[in-house]
């Protein structure tokens, strides 16, 4: 017998079956880059509701908010880069359909994830002092440093509460069946931190490969996730579409424009987009995108 660690491969719907109404879900990637969109689309198709979504926001947060899945949005920005303002999110904010909004500074957001990963109730940061982030989030307190600064003054600092996640969803270029995973693009973002801040983490990946292949010709520094942090692995080729998954594929700029136009348009425009691309399962989505791309 070949003793190997557990095989953690799952199907997309197996991951969604692990989720419950009211959960706090952290979504990795950054804005329009390397988002676990196949998993997001699966949540869109599900009956899940009242979610708290913690995200460096892009279309993930926009789509989930527009679908009424989000009770609480925790973010520092929501953007598609080439489309600066995410139209679905903008619409949800302007029509007041997200019941609770926790808009943080990016450093506060990061500090909250770090506190969760370290199993601390909070960590101190200067970020937020003097700003309206503390006005709009009165539950966030300040704390006086027990140590004097060089001038003898005792700084009051923001005591950023831990952003503990029930579940983290991330997308990496390659993973093995056991939950080790490698990013091949220029940036790890904070996917490892999301996994450490979560009770359970699921990684979707372009391709599941044998463990040895993860470091075959790839610098070991790119092995961002190890299996200690990962509960499940889903193979979802093109699963970050339409966000970038460099170097496997760039952002689908044309499709992003199509999405943005529909999201900014009338209810009928949006319904047409949703029916064409988001009504079926992931395979149907990928087929519809392929057809649309060929017809352009």
């Amino acid at each position, binding site marked *: 017998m070949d003793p190997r660690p557990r095989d953690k491969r799952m199907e997309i719907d197996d991951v969604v079956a692990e989720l419950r109404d009211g959960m706090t879900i952290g979504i990795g990637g*950054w804005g329009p880059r390397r988002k676990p969109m196949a998993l997001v689309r699966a949540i869109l198709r599900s009956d899940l509701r009242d979610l708290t979504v913690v995200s460096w*926001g892009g279309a993930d947060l926009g789509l989930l908010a527009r679908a009424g899945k989000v009770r609480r949005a925790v*973010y*520092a*920005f*929501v*953007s598609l880069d080439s489309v*600066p*303002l995410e139209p679905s*999110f*903008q619409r949800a*904010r*302007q029509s*007041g359909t997200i019941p609770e*909004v926790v*808009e*943080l*500074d*990016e*450093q*506060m957001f*990061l500090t909250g994830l770090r506190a969760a990963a370290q199993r601390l109730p909070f960590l101190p*940061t*200067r*970020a*937020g*002092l*003097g*700003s*309206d*982030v503390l*006005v*709009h989030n009165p539950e966030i307190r*300040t704390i006086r*440093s027990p140590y004097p*600064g060089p*001038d003898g*003054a*005792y*700084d*009051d*600092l923001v005591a950023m509460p831990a952003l503990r996640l029930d579940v983290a969803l991330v997308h990496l270029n390659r993973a093995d069946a056991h939950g080790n995973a490698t990013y091949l693009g*220029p*940036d*790890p*973002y*904070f996917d490892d931190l999301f996994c450490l801040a979560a009770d359970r983490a699921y990684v979707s990946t372009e391709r599941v490969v044998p463990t040895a292949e993860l470091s075959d010709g790839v610098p070991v520094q790119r092995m961002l996730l190890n299996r200690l942090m990962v509960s499940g692995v889903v193979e979802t080729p093109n699963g970050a579409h339409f966000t970038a998954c460099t170097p496997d594929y760039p952002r689908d700029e044309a499709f992003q424009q199509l999405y943005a136009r529909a999201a900014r348009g009338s209810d009928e425009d949006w319904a047409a987009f949703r029916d064409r691309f988001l009504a079926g399962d992931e395979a149907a989505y990928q087929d519809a995108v392929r057809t649309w791309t060929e017809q352009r």
Partner: protein
Amino acid sequence: MSAEHTDPTRAEVCAVAVADAFAEDGETLASPIGLIPMLGARLARRTVNPDLVLSDGVSLFVADDPPLGESGQEVEGWFPHPRVFDMLTFGRRHVMMGAPQLDRHGNQNLSAIGDFDRPDRQLLGTRAAPANTVNHRTSYWIPRHSPRALVERVDVVCGVGAAAARAAGSGATRFHDLHRVVTDLAVLDFTGPDGTLRVRSVHPGVEAEELRAATGFALELPDPLPRTRLPRPEELRLIREVLDPRGLREREVPTR
């Protein structure tokens, strides 16, 4: 456009004003957000401050200064998102951010216009403006100087002005360093009473009345009005032939 032989455009005056804002930083990470800030920072590195550190805006430090719209070829370091935040708190950074709203106290808003709970217009979100303004030098770039941008009071305080920092105590003031505001009409700083905005210079061709009308709060203007300096011939050559041969700068600040 042939170099040196035509008058400087407003966009070129702005780019040089941005370069001047980065002139005294020494070996600092410049984080220019926007076309003109990017052009100005690259110009500063080619002229007054060769020690400036610049990233490609994605995840690399680049040693060369490519034309606008292109990314550098000579990599001098890895600068992924997690490192951005380390560099932010390390402090050796000068960001020039946008400011959809900026008030006379130096508070900046890029979160939302109107009531935060039900905004008229949701913008990008708070981003790192609160962190930037209490950790390192911060400047602002406003491509359309108007009463909607320069307001009496911002709707959401993201970037922290001097009075707000003081009210939050030494934790907020220790590294608070608002530096410069460059707009399409003028250059301002924060040396007014109690750290409020003050006009340093007005761009060539801009009159006092025009500036007053474009500002949403009462501006005190020095008399005579100092003029923003014109680009030197070498700066014009660099802008037109090397750093922005496609003239992208004119899109952000059209010649009027």
